[in-house]
């Protein structure tokens, strides 16, 4: 197969894939959102078991998406992988820790002789559920607010603070996106639980918590979006690659890329509709709207971060070290090879969908928990 594709097309193509994976990842973090309420949502142990099992049947999808997101980012924009991971060391390490303890927690928590005791594993789930989404949100916020690093002429990163990434926690805009992501995944977690567990008490308790979490999400989300739209952004000259600060850059990006704006608005409306339908008309299908809205909103935010000649990983220390989809990408050959690989993605999504459906035909109930052979 021969295809004439330009390098710029491929860079854009891969940025779209990365953005899509990011959207799917944030949606799938409903698992984390559910985990973050493990000690407050269930009224007794049986309810906790049902919630853990509802979430536990999906944790691997989130985890695999995270691994794939990392791998795809490495393959398509290796300079980001090298600069951000090697520079903002502590943020990424903290994220990693929170995911390591998750992987085992489900499998081990209810097994006899698990040494650390069920409570420890549940605390692992709580830490992963709270810290993971929050820190990922903070890390992603630096795509818009910038970090302090420079690249030498061999493209090797020098991080310019002693804190190696933790300094991102001092920026109120980063914090607001971190908290917005945390409350969004909690909303999605509640909606997923409402959708997949047949238990009156759990339903009631979930609905009760949905309102507060939605309001908190909206507060932090709106704060982030409004400050984003009025802030300066990092523009890259398409001819020379020269990076400069431009007023209202992200607002301009949305206006100049109306499709992205439409996707973003559709996403936000869909998120809100899913929540509203659940709160006001008792629907149990809210997850489908809020979930797909999450994918769209995150997807379009990523597009706004990288397209329209914008530096997607800006350096506030040295503007010219900022990463753009042009200077940070893999070679033409690698991007093209990976594009062929990406043609398998719809097939992957199809079999995930089919398998997911086939084992989730029935909702989770107390009876099933008593008879299930493989229970978390």
């Amino acid at each position, binding site marked *: 197969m021969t295809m004439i594709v330009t390098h710029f097309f491929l860079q854009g193509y891969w940025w779209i894939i990365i953005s899509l994976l990011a959207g799917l990842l944030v949606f799938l973090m409903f698992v984390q959102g559910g985990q973050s309420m493990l000690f407050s949502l269930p009224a007794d142990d049986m309810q906790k078991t049902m919630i853990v099992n509802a979430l536990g049947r999906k944790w691997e999808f989130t985890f695999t998406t995270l691994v*794939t997101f990392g791998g795809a980012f*490495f393959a398509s924009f290796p*300079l980001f*992988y090298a600069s951000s991971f090697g520079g903002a060391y502590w943020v990424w390490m903290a994220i990693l820790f929170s995911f*390591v303890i998750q992987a085992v927690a489900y*499998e081990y928590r209810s097994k006899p002789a698990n040494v650390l005791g069920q409570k420890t594993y549940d605390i692992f789930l709580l830490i992963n559920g709270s810290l993971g989404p929050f820190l990922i949100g903070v890390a992603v916020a630096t795509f818009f607010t910038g970090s302090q690093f420079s690249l030498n002429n061999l493209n090797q990163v020098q*991080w310019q603070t002693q804190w190696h990434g933790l300094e991102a926690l001092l920026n109120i805009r980063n914090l607001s996106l971190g908290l917005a992501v945390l409350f969004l995944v909690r909303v999605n977690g509640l909606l997923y639980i409402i959708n997949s567990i047949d238990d009156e008490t759990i339903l009631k308790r979930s609905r009760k918590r949905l309102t507060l979490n939605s309001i908190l999400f909206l507060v932090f989300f709106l704060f982030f979006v409004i400050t984003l739209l009025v802030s300066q952004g990092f523009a890259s000259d398409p001819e020379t690659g020269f990076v400069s600060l431009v007023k209202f850059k992200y607002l301009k990006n949305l206006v100049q890329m109306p499709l992205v704006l439409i996707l973003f608005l559709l996403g936000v409306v869909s998120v809100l509709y899913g929540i509203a339908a659940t709160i006001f008309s008792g629907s149990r299908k809210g997850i489908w709207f809020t979930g797909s809205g999450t994918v769209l909103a995150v997807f379009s935010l990523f597009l706004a971060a990288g397209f329209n000649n914008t530096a997607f990983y800006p350096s506030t220390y040295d503007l010219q070290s900022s990463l753009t989809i042009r200077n940070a990408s*893999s070679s033409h*050959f690698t991007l093209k090879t990976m594009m062929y690989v990406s043609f398998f993605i719809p097939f992957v999504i199809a079999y995930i969908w089919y*398998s997911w459906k086939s084992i989730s035909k029935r909702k989770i109930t107390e009876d099933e928990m008593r008879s299930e052979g493989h229970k978390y």
Partner: protein
Amino acid sequence: MIENVDLSLVDWSRAQFALTAIYHWFFVPLTLGLSFLIAFMETIYVRTGDERWKRLTRFWMTLFGINFAIGVATGIILEFEFGTNWSNYSWFVGDIFGAPLAIEGILAFFIESTFIAVMFFGWGKVGKKFHLLSTWLVAIGASLSALWILVANAWMENPVGMIFNPETARNEMVSFWAVLFNEVAVGKFIHTISSGFVLASMFVIGVSSWFLIKKREEFLATRSILIAAIFGLLASVTLIYTGDTSARTLAKVQPMKFAAFEALYDGKDNAGLVAIGVLKNSGEKIDEKEVSDFVFKFEIPGFLSVMTGGSRDTFVPGIRDLVSGNSERGIMSVAEKIERGKYAGAVLAEYKKAREQNDHAKVEELKMKFMDTVFRDEYFRYFGYSFLKSPSDAIPSVPVAFYSFHIMVMLGFFFVLVFALSLFFLFRGTLIGNRWFLWVALFSIPLPYIAGELGWVVAEMGRQPWIIQDLMPVSAAVSNIKAGSVIVTFILFAVLFTALLVAEISIMVRQIKKGPKH
């Protein structure tokens, strides 16, 4: 650029990666092998409809699940550590190295993690055939995952299919097929998954033997041993065969590693293969490096030459030949390689300078130089050597390589014996009463774990000082962070992994004692 690299940073970064890799490899091989054994067992259940086979399948599946999660947990760290701890590496070769990791995620890991959910939760919810298919897909997905990771690792042993781009200061892929069908990759993949099959077979035989010792679960134990022994025997023979062919490839692409694990200092024709030996410090030195000598050795005459070149006349270069050079045999000295590497580095520096001064003519001229095959093959390929302080830096630890390799090989032959005897006693009908053999089988469970870890020690420590053979030493690959940060994360990981390992073993033992529950 990396003149002031902190050695303790390099050591701690290596220690952290080694720690993660060692723990990862405690769990992955069992996943690789047990998934296939379960698939065989479930196939028999679906074909015969015999509920006893279903019970047996589900028993091993429970153990599989306990093991799987922790393998996944340690795997994600390895992937991200390339970025966090080896960021200069990630840029220098990310254009080639990132692709297999991404493909692993997209094409393999998703198969594994999707169908594992069906495998565990699909009993009674999906049809028997779809369930069986899912079990098979988990096994295939796990091996495909291994394929892509090993392709990436093989590239570090034998970098192929790329050229260096001075503009971006990195290597760029020019042939995907060269990377995929790298001669090291093919052998390494088969050898490594076979080792997983062997480990899982030994695990199943050992656990089943325990049931027989305790006079429990006779059907489960004997049937499991039958399947595991056949699978294990085939896998262990493959393991030895691919070990042999890998050694031949190694002699060609990594002669220093090869000489180190044979502790061969002076090259010769008709070189013997050391079957068993004990090393001591000879008191001699090559630069600052101690030279090892044999206290005693048992050698198979001429066999090393035959193994590498097919005949006794084949010259096998020793460590001294490789360090000091041997003009008679056309071997270049490390000192010469350092000079050539430095020259390549100087050309790169000149290029960067011309770039900064906007000297377009010079830039174009030097760019052509990087396209020139003579420059590439005779100079730039030794780029990594420019970072070495002295020629002896090119020598890995000989005792580590020697003992790891020899213990691994001896264990490999022992596994063939255990599998063959298992089948022999099983067919004679004397297995159940043969208590000494059952005990041997039980206590053999840890041995493939040891052999597998040693295999990685040979591969990775035997490659030192290189992270990518000849192209980049570990000292040039590390991230620009404080050693103190890495020490902290190392300790955190060490404590966490150890706690999880203890928990895993404890849960596993309890589940085995409980036996199948259905």
